[in-house]
């Protein structure tokens, strides 16, 4: 058995057409439609206590004093923890940036001061949820308010500084310079300048909030963390040093998870408090985040402002380069950051053949919720920029936006970007044609006239986007060469048990993506049985020992890493089953075939067949007759490791990710010029994620990512006032799309198989924000007759559209064209 292996193209096995590619019934569904899923809040333990956090009402303040005595006096209150105890019992979490950003001290509870509204300052544990909440209200915290910083660009002035240890709000800063921007600019026929574009703050807000039930074993000094963390391997890397313990002392167990979208990656601060409380009280401690707390203080998406965008364009519409200053606002603590300062570079030129790109990137802290990876993490913001550039340049220079895209799309694959990434396969123009066909693009001018007659402004938009997947963690070294992270890995185990049970365990942490089903499809095809015969264990458990350092479900990678690992483990099991059957049936290995749950001699007599049960029983329970030099286990663990090579830290180049799924969106909107209300009247999303293992699941992911994008483009916005108070702290004010908000979606697909992945598949769950790009594009197109305003923000609720209609000139002042 190999512990780790590199799967290259030459080693790929050609799979017989079987379950792969077929939308078989999902294995997860039966329990979930009966309310029999096991989500973290469903777990109960004898004597457990419920934990509630006391949170700051201020965005920035010194903590003068905390008095927990009244809470402790309440019957049924088990105990409290404050920042002072945390500072003594734990170390600050590991920071990934370089100095001085790495001097930031991030503890599990606020120590000395609070830096955002909702930051936990104390925790209380009690016999019931209600009591814990009552007790939290009895904890008296005295604050001394400080000046508040809510604007990322303002943060650069360092007039208000959040982290005194760092002495600056800048977390990370660097210039990326690929090709020769200055020359491209000098040789351009047109240079288009856009002063400011703003990508707003929102998040996917999974319907199940975060949570955990933590048990502490005093005898073995180990914690078991039943939770919905979606990246436990990395969670443990943060938690163990902070708790001054080893990774082996933290057992993560997940069951069903009610959505994640990246928002369940940065849970280590809360989980450390739970660990401390469970140890302090000697009892299981449970915490389920409240919705308002999820919105206020957990996982916002990165907010990014693009300043002084310059675009070099040739007379024929060829784009040769761009130059931009990007200010990324990560909120009060970096946590997963500054990785967002490099992740965008996976898609540096977007879908286009830009050769000369210069990006001056700075990330800052402000008194807002910390960010966390959010579906489309960091690439979405950058792809929105590239799509805004296309539409603004096309509109200002009079190019057709479809033709401009097709002229500049990457066409030949594999394609190396200016920063050394390799786009593996695709057909962008093909996807666009399908999308345009689906929205009836040919008839759109007639529809524009029809809408006009009804007093409406009709617009068409396109969003071309990439869903880069299977991260190379080596990209972190482009931010900080000292970081000891690179590559990627994922594990799976496959075994055949005594009565013929086929069992697969995964290192991944599914949150609705149907891993049990797709893993079973791959397993069934390889070892020759039905999907129903394969039992894929629910969730992740450190004690399966089926995980690797980067285990988790994030960064659009399961179809590559997770299923790559399943394929590897299944092939190891298959090979051994064949060997065993050959020995028992006294036939050569080449003569053995596995199908329908039997090992048979091909074209042999019907009785020359062993059911899987026989193979399992021989190895596990009846093995005396096996010779000493033949020792099958029928239990295999495989680690899939994609090959990237090392990155060039000097030139900031390298293969930052493995695969590039494409999504091209197109839509038609109608704007009411009286109110600014935007209605989506036609919508299409075309996906190319290589070989599809389960087309129905792929389509479901496309639908879901599109709905997120529609929400973000029109409704969802974390709005802060000047005091740092979040004005949209729950679903009452933060409007996520409901059934009447999402139009009927049309979908199409192309399968450009990836040449670099085990199954030709690519990760694809994130969608790259295609819907945001395409709706911004459509609104700008619709508003053309009303003074040609420029869509400058990624969120365009009716009032912003109304403002653009009323004052197009102020948006147009944002853009300048110099032609020669």
């Amino acid at each position, binding site marked *: 058995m190999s512990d780790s292996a590199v799967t290259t193209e030459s080693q790929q096995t050609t799979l017989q057409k079987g379950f792969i590619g077929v939308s078989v019934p999902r294995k997860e569904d039966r329990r979930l439609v*009966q309310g029999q899923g096991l989500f973290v809040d469903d777990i109960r333990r004898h004597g457990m206590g419920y934990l509630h956090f006391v949170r700051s009402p201020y965005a920035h303040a010194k903590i003068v004093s905390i008095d927990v005595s009244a809470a402790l006096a309440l019957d049924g209150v088990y105990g409290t923890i404050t920042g002072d105890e945390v500072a003594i019992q734990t170390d600050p979490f590991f920071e990934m940036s370089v100095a001085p950003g790495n001097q930031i001290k991030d503890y599990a509870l606020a120590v000395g001061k609070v830096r955002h509204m909702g930051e936990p300052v104390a925790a209380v544990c009690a016999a019931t949820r209600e009591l814990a909440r009552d007790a939290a209200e009895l904890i008296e915290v005295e604050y001394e308010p400080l000046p508040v910083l809510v604007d990322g660009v303002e943060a650069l002035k360092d007039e208000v500084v959040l982290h005194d240890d760092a002495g600056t709000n800048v977390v990370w800063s660097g210039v990326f310079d690929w090709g020769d921007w200055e020359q491209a600019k000098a040789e351009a026929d047109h240079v288009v300048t856009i002063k400011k574009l703003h990508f707003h703050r929102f998040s996917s807000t*999974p319907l199940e909030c975060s949570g955990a039930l933590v048990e502490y074993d005093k005898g073995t000094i180990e914690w078991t963390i039943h939770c919905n963390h979606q990246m436990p391997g990395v969670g443990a890397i943060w938690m163990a040093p902070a708790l001054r313990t080893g990774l082996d002392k933290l057992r993560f167990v997940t069951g069903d998870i009610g959505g994640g979208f990246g928002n369940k990656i940065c849970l280590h601060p809360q989980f450390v408090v739970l660990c401390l409380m469970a140890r302090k009280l000697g009892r299981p401690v449970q915490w389920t985040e409240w919705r308002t707390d999820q919105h206020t203080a957990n996982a916002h998406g990165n907010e990014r402002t693009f300043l002084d965008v310059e675009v070099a364009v040739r007379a024929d519409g060829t784009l040769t380069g761009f130059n931009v200053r990007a200010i990324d606002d990560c909120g009060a603590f970096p946590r997963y950051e500054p990785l967002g300062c490099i992740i965008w570079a996976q898609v540096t030129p977007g879908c286009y053949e830009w050769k000369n790109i210069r990006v001056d990137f700075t990330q800052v802290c402000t008194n807002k919720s910390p960010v966390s990876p959010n579906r489309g993490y960091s690439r979405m913001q950058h792809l929105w920029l590239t799509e805004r550039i296309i539409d603004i340049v096309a509109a200002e220079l009079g190019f057709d936006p479809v033709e401009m895209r097709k002229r500049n799309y990457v066409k030949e694959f594999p394609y190396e970007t200016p920063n050394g990434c390799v786009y593996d396969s695709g057909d962008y123009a093909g996807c666009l044609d399908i999308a345009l066909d689906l929205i009836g693009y040919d008839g759109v001018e007639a529809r524009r006239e029809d809408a006009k007659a009804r007093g409406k402004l009709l617009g068409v938009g396109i969003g071309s986007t990439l869903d880069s997947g299977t991260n190379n963690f080596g990209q972190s070294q482009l931010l900080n060469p000292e970081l000891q992270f690179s590559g990627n890995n994922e594990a799976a185990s496959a075994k055949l048990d005594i009565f013929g049970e086929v069992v697969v365990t995964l290192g991944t942490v599914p949150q609705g993506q149907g891993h049990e089903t797709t893993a079973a499809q791959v397993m069934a095809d390889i070892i020759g049985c039905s999907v129903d015969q394969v039992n894929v264990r629910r969730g992740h458990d450190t004690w399966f020992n089926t995980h690797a350092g980067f285990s988790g479900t994030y960064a659009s990678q399961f179809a590559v890493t997770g299923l790559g690992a399943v394929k590897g483990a299944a092939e190891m099991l298959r090979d051994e089953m064949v060997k065993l059957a050959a020995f028992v049936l006294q036939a050569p290995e080449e003569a053995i075939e596995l199908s329908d749950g039997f090992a048979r001699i091909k074209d042999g007599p019907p009785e020359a067949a062993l059911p899987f049960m026989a193979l399992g029983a021989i190895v596990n329970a009846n093995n005396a007759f096996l010779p000493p030099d033949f020792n099958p286990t029928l239990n295999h663990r495989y680690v899939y490791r994609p090959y990237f090579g090392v990155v060039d830290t000097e030139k900031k180049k390298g293969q930052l990710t493995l695969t590039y799924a494409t999504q091209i969106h197109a839509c038609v909107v109608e704007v009411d010029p009286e109110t600014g209300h935007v209605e989506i009247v036609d919508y299409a999303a075309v996906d190319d994620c290589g070989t599809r293992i389960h087309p129905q699941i792929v389509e479901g992911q496309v639908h879901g990512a599109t*709905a997120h994008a529609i929400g973000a483009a029109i409704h969802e916005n974390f709005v802060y006032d000047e005091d740092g108070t979040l004005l949209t702290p*729950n679903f009452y004010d933060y409007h996520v799309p409901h059934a009447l908000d999402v139009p009927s979606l049309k979908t199409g697909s192309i399968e450009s198989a990836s040449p670099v992945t085990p199954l030709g598949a690519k990760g694809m769950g994130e969608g790259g924000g295609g819907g945001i790009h395409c709706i911004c594009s459509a609104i700008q197109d619709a508003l053309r007759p009303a003074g040609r305003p420029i869509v400058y923000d990624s969120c365009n609720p009716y009032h912003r559209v109304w403002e653009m209609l009323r004052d197009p000139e102020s948006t147009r002042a944002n853009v300048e064209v110099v032609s020669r």
Partner: protein
Amino acid sequence: MTQAPATDLTIAVEVNGELVEMEVPARRLLVHFLRDDLGLTGTHIGCDTGNCGACTVHYDGVSIKSCMMLTAQADGAKITTVEGLAPDGELTPLQRSFSEHHALQCGYCTPGMLMSASALLSHTPHPTEEEVRVALQGNICRCTGYMNIVKAVMSAGGAK
């Protein structure tokens, strides 16, 4: 400052066909009674504001959000939760349709969706797409974009 609960009440409520008599704190929400006191964890909680619908159950045959009602208000009522849809494990046509149409991904909103949709189908057996979308507008799903949920409900209702 909040005071500890002063009053407990004894209630009698029929849940999924079984009569339950229990003393409960007066302030306990129906959803917490179902989940924490009866262990019916199929009914979920997704928000604090009555917006998400994950906690939807039937109250005397009408769909309600069980986070917006006190347990005491259910005294004398018949409550059906998702566990009561297919008590013998034989899935209903609606549950089967959800699976066939891939109307669920993470499954967290699913119980609430099923309860809202089954209430709709009980009085409108062949709903239009608009009627389905209106009936489900109080239920948030963050995974599916509603497309396949709407299809599943229409299919279960035999709609064209």
